[in-house]
C-alpha cells in the first residue's frame, strides 16, 4: 500500500508545478465536491481506512476537541445513512472546512514506523 508520506510527496510536487497544478487542482476539487461525503457531514480525512496500526496511532494522538468532532461527524453520517437523508446545503461541510486535520498525525506515525523498520534491519559493516 502506498503510504501517506508518498501521497503527500506527490501532491507537493504537483502543487510546486504551476502548469500541472492548474490542471490537477480543479479536477481534485470537483471530484471531492461530487463525491458527496460533505453532504453526509464528513471531512475527507474521515474516509481514510482506519483499521491499521498507523491510523489507530494517529487517531489516538488527536487533540481531545478534534477527536470529539471526528466522532460526532461519524455519528452524523451514520444517522444520515440510516434515515436515507442528506444534510441540507447550509449544514453540509463547506469546502474550506474540509481540512486535512489528521494527515500530520498520520505522517508522524508513518515516520516512526519507517524508522523502526530501518533500525530493526540494521546491518553491520566492517
Amino acid at each position: 500500500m502506498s503510504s501517506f508520506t508518498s501521497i503527500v510527496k506527490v501532491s507537493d510536487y504537483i502543487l510546486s508545478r504551476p502548469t500541472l497544478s492548474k490542471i490537477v487542482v480543479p479536477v481534485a476539487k470537483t471530484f471531492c465536491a461530487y463525491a458527496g461525503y460533505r453532504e453526509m457531514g464528513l471531512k475527507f480525512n474521515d474516509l481514510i481506512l482506519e483499521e491499521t496500526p498507523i491510523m489507530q496511532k494517529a487517531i489516538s494522538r488527536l487533540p481531545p476537541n478534534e477527536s470529539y468532532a471526528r466522532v460526532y461527524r461519524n455519528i452524523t453520517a451514520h444517522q444520515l445513512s440510516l434515515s436515507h437523508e442528506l444534510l441540507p446545503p447550509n449544514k453540509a461541510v463547506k469546502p474550506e472546512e474540509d481540512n486535512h486535520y489528521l494527515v500530520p498525525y498520520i505522517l508522524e506515525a508513518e515516520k516512526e514506523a519507517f524508522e523502526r523498520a530501518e533500525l530493526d534491519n540494521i546491518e553491520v559493516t566492517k
Partner: protein
Amino acid sequence: MIRGSTFKSGMKSVAAAKRAIATATTPTKYATLSNGVTIATETNPHAKVSTIGLWFGAGSRSEHSYSNGISALTVSTLASTLEDGVLLTSQSTKETNAIIAQTTNDNVLEAAKLISKIGSNPSEYLEKADLALSKSQLIAQAAQLEATPDKMVLEHLNASAFQGYSLALPTLGTSESISGLQLQDSERLLERHLVGSNVVVAASGNFDHNQLVEAVEAALSIKQGHKPAVKPASFLGSEVKMRDDTMPKAYVALAAQGEGVSSPAYYVAQVASKIFNDFDHHSAFAKFQSPKLASQVQEYHIVDKYTHFSTSYSDTGLWGFNAEISNIYQIDDFVHFTLKQWNRLSISITDAEVERAKQQTKTALLAGLNSTEAIASDIAKKVLLLGYRTSIRESLEKIDAITTKDVRAWAQAALWDKDIVISGTGQIEGLMDYNRWRNGMAMMRW
C-alpha cells in the same frame, strides 16, 4: 561501524576520543604469602573507601543437607560488627565465603590486621560471638529470600537443575537446617576449608600494595593444606512449581545448562544472554529497545519484567531467563516467544544483534565493578574458582573476538534441543508442563 547515517553525528571527533582510551588500567598486583595464601590488590586513586577481605572456597556447595547454611552462618558470625571505623561484613555464595572489612583509606592497615586476626584464629571469635543471635539473623535472611518471589524462583531453579548434588543447596540454608547448626559444625568447616591454597586475600582502594602485603604477612597465620576437591555436579532437566494464587503475579524462570567460569565459551554465553538483555514494561524506554523479543512482548504487555542471565559456577552454570508476568493468561505466549527467539540463536541470529550484545556485555562487565568491594570480590572469586583472573583488558579482548559464528555454534551445542529446567511460583496455572517447553527448544523446520 554501523552502516547508514546512524552514527555520523556522534562521531565527529573520534581522534580526540581515542586519546581517552589510552589511559592506563591499574594492574592487579599479586603476592603469595609464606603460608601459601594468595594476596591480590588493585589500587584506585579515586576510591574513598578501601575494602580488604579474606575469601575462601567453601559455600553451600561444600555442605550437606543437614549442615546446609553452616558456611554462611560461620562468616556472618565472624564478621558483622563495626570496630573503630572498620565495618566488618560477610559475603556468601554457592562456592565461596568471605569476611570483608571496609574502611576509609587511612585506616586500611588496621582493617588488614583485623581481618588477619579473625582469619588466624576464628575459633576464638566464634566462641565469643552470640551464635544464637547469628542463627536467628540468618534464618530471617533465608525467610526474606523465600518471601521475595523473583529471587526465590531462581534459588529453586538451581535446586531443581542440580538436584542430588550439593550445588543444589540454597546458599543461606533453610530455617530448619540453620536452627540445627552448632559451633562444632563451624569449626569443622573452617578446619577443612580455611587452608593456605584455598584462601585469597583481596583488596581494592587507595593504599600502598607493599605495606598491605607486609601487614597481612605479619598478622595472618593460616595452616598449609590442599584445597578440598569439589565434586562435579550434573544438570538434570526438570521442573519445580509452587502455585500460589494469592500472589499478584506469576514468577517464572527457565534455563538450560550454562557455562562454568573455566569454560572457553564463558563470554560467548554472556553475550548470548545480552542479545535478549533485560526488559521492564513500565520503563519509558521499553518500546524503543533493540531485542526482537522486547518488541514482541512490549506490544501486547505479555510480561512485566524479564532478565536474561548467564550464571557460572566453577564447573557448570545456568543460562536462561527470569520473568514476572501479571498478564497470567498469556504466560505461554511469553515462554513461547522467548524460546523461539532462543532458537534463532542457533540458526538466524544477525551480526547486528551480536555486535550490540558484545558492547553491552563489555559495559555491564565494567559497570559491575562499581565499588571497591565489588572489585575485591571479583578478583578473589575468579582466583579461587579459576586459579587466576584474566585482566579486564584481556576480558574485553576476548569479548571483542566473539563472532556471530561463535554464538551460533555455542547455541547449537548448548541450547538447541537441550534439556531445560523450569521454576515457577505465583499464579502459574497457565504455565504449561515440562514437555511442552522442552519441545520448544528446537524447531522442526525454519
